[in-house]
C-alpha cells in the first residue's frame, strides 16, 4: 500500500460514467430556493452586489447628475471640436484682449485675444488625463503595498505601515509641490507622478484592511490546501473583495486630484504654458480679476463641476455598494 504510485490507474476511479450515489433527498428538491433567506430577517448576501448596486444607481439622482456631468466632460476631453469651432491657440485680435462675453464669444476673450470658450473647453482634456493617470499610479502603488502588507503581515507589514504614516504626514499638495519644484520639465507625466507618489496612502490602507480581513477566510484556506500559488490566492480570492471599496475611493480621488493639479498649476509648480489647463487660466486671470472677472469665473466653474461630478458618482457608488446601508 505504501508504494502506491500516482498514476491514476490505481486511484479510485470516480466521477466516471455512472456516478450512482445521488442522495435520495436533494437532487429533485431544489426548486424552491432561488434566494435563500437565511433567517427571518431576510439577510440576503452579496455576489448579487453588482447587479443590486447597478439597479440602485440607476435610480439615484446623485449618481445620474454626476454621471451626466462626467459624460459631458469626457466627450469634451476626447473631442473638444464638437463643442467649439474656434482654435484655442489662435489669436483672433489682440485688440479684443480680455473682452467680456458676447453673442459671438460666449466666454469672451483671453488676455491675448483668443476665444476663451475654446480655451476652457480644451482645458478639460488635461484635467481628465492627470486625474485618471495619477489615480492609476495611486492604485498601482497602493494595491501592491497594501497586498504585501496585508498578506505577509509581520515585519513587512510593520515597515510598510510606518512608511505610510510618514507619507501621511505630508500634505498632498505640499509634497507634490516640493517634488515638482526640483524637476526640470513639468508636464502631464511629472504632475501625475508627483500626485501619485504623495497620494497612495489611503488606497494602501483600504487594500491592506480588506486583505487582512479576508486572508484567513475558509475559502482562502481551501485554496491554500489545494496548493494554489500566492499570486492566484491574491488575485482570485482576496483582491476581488477590495474592488468595491477601492472603486469608490478611486472615483472620488480622481476628482480630488484634478483639483490638486489645478492648485499646483495655479501656484506655478504644476503644468506649464503652453499647456491649456484650467489652473493656468485661473492663474493668468487673477491679475485682471477686477476688470475681467470672466477670466477666472469660467475655468473655475468648469473645474468645480468636473470635481463635483466625480464626488457625486463616488458618493452614490458608496451608498450602492455598502450593504450595511441597505
Amino acid at each position: 500500500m505504501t508504494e502506491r504510485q500516482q498514476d491514476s490507474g490505481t486511484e479510485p476511479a470516480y466521477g466516471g460514467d455512472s456516478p450512482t450515489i445521488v442522495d435520495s433527498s436533494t437532487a429533485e428538491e431544489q426548486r424552491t430556493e432561488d434566494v435563500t433567506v437565511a433567517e427571518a430577517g431576510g439577510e440576503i448576501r452579496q455576489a448579487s452586489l453588482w447587479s443590486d448596486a447597478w439597479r440602485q444607481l440607476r435610480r439615484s439622482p446623485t449618481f445620474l447628475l454626476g454621471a451626466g456631468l462626467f459624460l459631458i466632460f469626457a466627450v469634451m476631453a476626447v473631442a473638444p471640436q464638437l463643442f467649439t469651432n474656434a482654435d484655442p491657440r489662435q489669436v483672433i485680435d489682440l485688440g479684443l484682449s480680455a473682452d467680456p462675453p458676447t453673442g459671438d464669444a460666449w466666454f469672451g476673450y483671453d488676455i491675448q485675444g483668443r476665444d476663451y470658450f475654446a480655451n476652457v473647453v480644451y482645458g478639460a482634456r488635461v484635467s481628465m488625463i492627470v486625474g485618471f493617470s495619477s489615480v492609476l499610479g495611486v492604485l498601482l502603488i497602493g494595491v501592491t503595498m497594501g497586498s504585501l502588507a496585508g498578506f505577509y503581515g509581520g515585519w513587512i507589514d510593520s515597515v510598510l505601515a510606518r512608511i505610510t504614516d510618514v507619507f501621511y504626514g505630508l500634505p498632498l499638495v505640499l509634497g507634490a509641490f516640493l517634488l515638482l519644484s526640483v524637476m526640470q520639465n513639468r508636464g502631464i507625466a511629472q504632475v501625475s507622478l508627483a500626485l501619485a507618489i504623495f497620494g497612495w496612502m489611503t488606497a494602501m490602507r483600504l487594500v491592506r484592511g480588506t486583505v487582512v480581513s479576508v486572508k484567513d477566510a475558509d475559502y482562502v484556506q481551501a485554496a491554500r490546501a489545494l496548493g494554489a500559488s500566492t499570486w492566484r490566492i491574491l488575485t482570485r480570492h482576496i483582491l476581488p473583495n477590495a474592488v468595491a471599496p477601492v472603486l469608490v475611493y478611486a472615483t472620488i480621488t480622481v476628482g480630488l486630484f484634478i483639483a490638486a493639479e489645478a492648485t499646483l498649476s495655479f501656484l506655478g509648480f504644476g503644468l506649464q504654458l503652453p499647456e491649456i489647463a484650467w489652473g493656468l487660466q485661473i492663474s493668468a486671470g487673477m491679475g485682471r480679476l477686477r476688470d475681467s472677472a470672466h477670466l477666472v469665473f469660467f475655468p473655475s466653474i468648469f473645474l468645480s463641476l468636473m470635481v463635483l461630478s466625480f464626488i457625486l458618482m463616488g458618493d452614490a457608488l458608496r451608498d450602492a455598494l455598502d450593504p450595511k446601508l441597505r
Partner: protein
Amino acid sequence: MSQTLTTPDISGAAGAPVLEVNDLHVEFRTPHGLVRAVNGITYSVRPGETLAILGESGSGKSVSVQAVMGILDSPPGFVTGGSILFHGQDMLTMPAAQQRVIRGPGIAMVFQDALSSLNPVFSVGHQIGEMYRAHQGASRREAKAKAIELMERVRIPAARERVNDYPHQFSGGMRQRVMIAMALALDPEILIADEPTTALDVTVQAQIMELLNDLQRDTGMGLILITHDLGVVNEVADRVAVMYAGKIVESGTIDEVFTAPTHPYTAGLMSSVPQAETKGTRLQPIKGQPPNLAAIPPGCSFHPRCPHARIGSAAAADQDCAGDVPELREVRPARMAACHYSEEIFGE
C-alpha cells in the same frame, strides 16, 4: 390562516397562564420581498413550567419571542396580528411605557451570544447592578451588593473578586451566567432563553441547563426555551411546541411528542439525529431543504419535504397537502398537530 385560539391544558403545572400568545403574526418587509416569519402561533406558559419551542433555522422560533420581548427590529419587522397577554393584559395594545414596566420585572430574556449582548466597556457588576438602579432606584453601593448576590446565585466562583471584571475576562460559560444573572435581577415571572447553550461546549451546556433548572425550581418562574437541539428539549422541558415555517406544527408534553410524534416533521427530525442505535445504519433524514420564508409553499408548508404528502387526486376532499392549509388541531387527547393525515399516518 387562523388557528385554534386556545391550547388545551396539557401542562402538568397548575395555575393560570402567566403569558399567553394568541395567533401571533410577524412579517419582515425587506427590499427583496415580504418575509412571513411567524404565521399565527399560539402558546401559553404557566408558573413553574418549561415550554420548549423547537425548530430549525428559519422556523421563526426566535422571531416569535422577539415580538414578545418587544425587541423586534422594526422596521423591517412588524407584528401584523394576534395578541400577547401577560396576566390577561394585551401588551401589543398598551403604551410603550407600560410595556417597559411589564418587561423588566415580568419577562426577561437570555440570548445565545452572551459576548455581544454584554457591553464591553462596563464591568459585569455594573451591568447587573444597572437593572436595580434603573428599575428600583437603588444606590451605587446597593446595586453592587445585589450584583454580587446574583453572581453567587448563578454560581460564578469568587463573585466578590470578579464583580469589577469586564465581559472579555470571562469564559463563554461564565458570560452566559452573567446574562442569566441580569435576567434574574428583577425576579421575572417568565424567563425566555433563546438558544442559551448553542454557543457553548457540551460540558458547559450541562452546567448551564442544570443552573436554569435549579433556578426555576427555586423561583417558580415559567421558562420558554428556544432551541434546535432535541436532546436539550428532552432533558429540561415539560412541553414542546415544534415550529416549521413560522407555524407550530405539533405540540404536547415531551414524553408524548418524543415517544410518539404525530406530525411527519417531528418524526423526521427525530429520525435525523444519530443515536447509539443508529450506528452502522443509514440515517433517515428529511429530504430537501428548510423552507424559504419569503416563498413558503402553499397548503401545508412541509408538504414538499413530507414522505406522506397527498397531493391532487391522492388527497381527500379539502385535504390536499399542496393546497389546503392544515389547522393545528387536537389529534389525540392533549395533543395538537397540524397535519391532515396525522391519524392515518401515526394511528389514533
